[in-house]
């Protein structure tokens, strides 16, 4: 900077350079042109920076007639440094490096010529160094690039005022040439660097595409195959070198040719994106379904280069989807063909599926209930409570439940239903499957049956009452005892009938039968101890056993244990394991001593002969002194799952 500030100030004072008296000046125009011609030629041919600088130094020393000259350029830090020189000592360069009249962004400055260093006001060290190098006059010629200073060249002469007018013009021209060349060289370096990066990037992408786990291809504007990546070459088993002759269209499924070719042709013609699926035969001869997505490719000038596409093998996906569709279809068909109404809801009670039978049952059209809340099928009175009911059922164990409920049809009519509900857990969450059957008909039948049974019972008992009336009239005047005995038997029969009617003539619990038959015992009932497991009897067995118990009971009241204050009766029954038999034991205790009867009355007859025959069993009636014992053994249909231990 020091030298800059002083020399610039003096520049104006420098006398006109074109001094004809100056020695060593080359004013010869022809020589200057030759110098510039050589410089231009050498710069044009220069293979690198060094050759350019060398050519410039030659031009300077030859054209400006100086033995010493140098070229300096700003480095990255904005410091002017020697990059090439002639005839300068190392000391000189080291001492004066960095001195510059301009900074890196000075705009298009004029050159500076120092006619005599000895007459400047430069510091001593600068002047001494310059003079010691044998230099009297100096020329500072700026080298610019796009108007800005990038450096300078220096011409040094041993005599004062060595650079005349013509010499100055030449110096500026040489500097311009050099600046232009340096700029060109820099641009070239940048271009080469960019190109290198581009090539590396392309190489990277090429590698990626080559080894990508999808099939990638490129075609030209006419659809000819340019490139297939490794996966796609393997798919078709085509070598890289055979691409030119390879025609992928031959591998297409005949059924897809028209559609796929239409789509691809259209994309090429309209130069647009295409997405198409088709079946292609691979190297193994199997058809695979490939989904192709291709994008148009354009050159920098906008011309259409063809398509770049990616093929994805979706065979497995399609198969899985089809399997799922088929499975769903089958499921729907099963549901539709089910012989009862079926409804499936999600966990929130939304109807996901309902078969035609159920829709018809509730009076809705096909599909009308899809997506609706199940509550629409619930009677208004129960509707508000239903969601809570569902929730509590879901919160509990996911057990199937079955029961009779009332449903609401679309027309508002309420219908009796039997519903089976089974929650299942699927990958989509909880699903509730319900079967729904209209039981109106069954309800009517049941009611009718109840009515018929009641009527039958009424008639039977009316008939029994008529029979009783007959007996009443028959024995009235003769034998009151016989009449009462008969009435009692008739009562026992009527009681058993009642019980059978209540149980719909299906089966009767022995416990209940004993309770009903012994009801007339009144206060004496407490003296009959009854114990035994739960047993169900057929109607026939129940009537017979009721009569038998009545006989035993009336007998014990008259003659047996219950005829005295202390006596009691033990009535027990149990299964005889492994024999499918029931044993009922009537044992009297604590009564008056028993005398075997002189002749067997109707009671004994009924017990020992009729009963045994009726029950297909065995009856043992023993008049033991301690009390009457009666043991009845009979087969029963259902032994109640009792274990048969060896």
């Amino acid at each position, binding site marked *: 900077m020091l030298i800059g500030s002083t020399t610039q100030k003096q520049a104006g004072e420098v006398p006109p350079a074109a001094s004809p008296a100056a020695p060593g000046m080359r004013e010869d125009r022809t020589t200057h042109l030759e110098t510039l011609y050589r410089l231009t030629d050498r710069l044009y041919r220069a293979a690198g920076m060094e050759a350019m600088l060398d050519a410039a130094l030659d031009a300077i020393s030859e054209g400006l007639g100086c033995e010493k000259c140098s070229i300096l350029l700003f480095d990255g830090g904005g410091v002017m440094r020697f990059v090439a020189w002639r005839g300068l000592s190392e000391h000189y360069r080291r001492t004066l490096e960095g001195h510059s009249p301009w900074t890196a962004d000075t705009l298009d400055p004029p050159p500076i010529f120092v006619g005599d260093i000895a007459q400047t006001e430069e510091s001593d060290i600068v002047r001494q160094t310059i003079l010691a190098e044998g230099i009297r006059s100096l020329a500072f010629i700026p080298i610019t690039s796009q108007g800005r200073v990038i450096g300078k060249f220096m011409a040094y002469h041993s005599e004062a005022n060595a650079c005349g007018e013509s010499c100055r013009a030449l110096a500026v021209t040489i500097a311009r040439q050099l600046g232009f060349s340096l700029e060109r060289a820099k641009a070239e370096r940048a271009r080469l660097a960019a190109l290198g990066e581009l090539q590396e990037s392309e190489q990277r992408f090429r590698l990626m595409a080559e080894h990508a786990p999808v099939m990638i291809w490129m075609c030209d504007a006419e659809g000819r195959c340019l490139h297939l990546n490794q996966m796609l070459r393997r798919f078709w088993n085509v070598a890289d070198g055979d691409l030119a002759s390879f025609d992928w269209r031959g591998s297409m499924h005949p059924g897809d040719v028209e559609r796929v070719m239409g789509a691809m042709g259209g994309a090429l013609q309209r130069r647009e994106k295409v997405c198409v699926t088709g079946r292609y035969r691979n190297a193994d001869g199997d058809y695979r379904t490939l989904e192709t997505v291709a994008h148009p490719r354009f050159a920098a000038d906008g011309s259409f280069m063809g398509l770049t596409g990616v093929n994805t093998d979706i065979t497995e996906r399609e198969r899985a989807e089809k399997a799922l569709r088929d499975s769903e279809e089958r499921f729907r068909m099963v549901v539709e063909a089910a012989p009862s109404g079926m409804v499936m809801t999600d966990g929130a009670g939304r109807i996901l599926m309902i078969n035609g039978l159920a829709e018809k049952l509730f009076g809705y059209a096909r599909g009308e209930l899809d997506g609706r809340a199940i509550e629409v099928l619930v009677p208004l009175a129960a509707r508000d409570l239903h969601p809570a009911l569902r929730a509590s059922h879901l919160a509990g164990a996911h057990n199937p439940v079955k029961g009779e409920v009332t449903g609401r049809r679309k027309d508002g009519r309420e219908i009796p239903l039997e519903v089976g509900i089974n929650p299942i857990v699927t990958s989509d969450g909880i699903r509730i499957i319900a079967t729904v059957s209209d039981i109106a008909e069954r309800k009517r039948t049941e009611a009718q049956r109840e009515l018929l049974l009641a009527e039958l*019972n009424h008639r039977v*008992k009316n008939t029994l*009452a008529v029979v009783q*009336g*007959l007996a009443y*009239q028959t024995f*009235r005047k003769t034998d009151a005892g016989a009449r009462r005995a008969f009435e009692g038997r008739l*009562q026992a029969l*009527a009681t058993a009938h009642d019980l059978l009617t209540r149980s719909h003539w299906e089966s009767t619990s022995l416990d209940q039968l004993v309770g009903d038959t012994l009801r007339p015992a009144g206060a004496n009932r407490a003296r009959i101890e009854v114990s035994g497991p739960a047993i169900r009897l057929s109607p026939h067995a129940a009537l017979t056993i009721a009569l038998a118990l009545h006989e035993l009971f009336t007998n014990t009241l008259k003659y047996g244990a219950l005829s005295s204050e202390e006596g009691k009766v033990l009535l027990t029954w149990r299964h005889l394991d492994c024999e499918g038999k029931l044993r009922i034991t009537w044992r009297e205790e604590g009564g008056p001593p028993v005398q075997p009867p002189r002749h067997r009355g109707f009671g004994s007859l009924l017990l020992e002969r009729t009963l045994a025959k009726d029950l297909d069993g065995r009856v043992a009636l023993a008049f033991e002194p301690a009390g009457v014992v009666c043991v009845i053994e009979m087969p029963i249909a259902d032994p109640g799952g009792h274990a048969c231990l060896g």
Partner: protein
Amino acid sequence: MPWLKGKRILVVEDEALIAVMVEDMLIEMGSVVVGPAATIEQALALARAEQIDGAVLDVNVRGERIDPVADALAARGVPMLFATGYGEVKLGSGAAATVIDKPYTQDKLARGLAAAMGGAALRQSAG
């Protein structure tokens, strides 16, 4: 049955043999039988016209329900005992009805009447 002595009991029963038996049983127990009526029509006429202390009513008389007769008697405050072959009976009147099953013995009839005619009769009996 001293408490039944002289009581006027209406009998409605369409089955003649049963009617005769009930009549005999009641007479044996000392009461006076009104009827027996074999149809609802007859029964209604008696229920309205006669002096009656109690009634033994068949629930189903020739296929007709006894209810009109029961209502007429209830209006007069007459205690009633229903006899039926149906296991369980629901009566239109809704009043708590005393019911005995057919066939029934004299004892059962006496117990039924005692229950139907209630406290007054029993007190009388005790007296």
